[in-house]
């Protein structure tokens, strides 16, 4: 594969039925590409957590998955309120999620730390009032 392949996904605000479909599609593609199960798991955990963040906090947004020969780049961008203090948001247990999200088993302040833990590279760009973009790299 000399040229990379890009997949684009719409992420809908507060849609807890179809949330995760983008990550599910990426999982299927990685399987077809013959990527090892351990790497697939790291990629989909990272993407799914980021996708849920965009659904929960970001008012929806876009997901991009670019498949290269030896790595995958996942970008999740939202037009949400942005993160005021990224350092704080990276701490396990820090959360701004409302109660109804916690009742669904998310929003306990594990999302960003989980992404950091499972990815090879994580870049967070966030501007208060404008939105947040995560760039996640997973090496094969």
């Amino acid at each position, binding site marked *: 594969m000399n040229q990379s392949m890009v997949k684009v996904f719409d992420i809908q605000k507060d849609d807890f039925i179809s949330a995760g479909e983008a990550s*599910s599609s990426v999982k299927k593609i990685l399987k077809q590409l013959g990527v090892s199960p351990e790497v697939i798991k790291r990629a989909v955990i990272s993407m*799914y*957590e980021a996708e849920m963040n965009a659904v929960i906090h970001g008012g929806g947004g876009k997901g991009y998955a670019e498949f290269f020969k030896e790595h995958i780049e996942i970008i999740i961008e939202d037009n949400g309120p942005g993160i005021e203090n990224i350092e704080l948001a990276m701490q396990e247990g820090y959360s701004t999620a409302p109660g109804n999200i916690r009742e*669904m*088993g*998310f929003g306990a302040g*594990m*999302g960003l730390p989980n992404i950091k833990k499972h990815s090879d590279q994580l870049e967070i760009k966030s501007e208060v009032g404008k939105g947040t973009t995560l760039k996640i790299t997973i090496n094969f």
Partner: protein
Amino acid sequence: MKVCDIAKILNGNILFSNEKCESDFLTACGADLMSDVMAFARDNEILLTGLTNPQVVRTAEMMDIKAIVFVRGKVPPEVSLDLARELGVNIICTKLPMFVACGKLYEHGITGGVHEE
């Protein structure tokens, strides 16, 4: 341990059984926090949970978990069951509370995940 054995031990009902899934389950994880499941679950685990929304099934998909036990008499909504059928995830319901359900499986040789040596 097969899906039918899990149901028998937990006095539960199988709501969906993936006939193609001949999985032999060796470990389990009991959690109501899906991020914890993603942080700690291993392959081929049973997930025991009291949450029934579709994202529980989606989390199982991400983690290659092929069996979910809904505890405390929780019955999943149709939308969760549809997703489980689509993804081939076995679904069992039991009236037992989480602690007892985990204990019974442990008693029958199912062990925990990552931190148990």
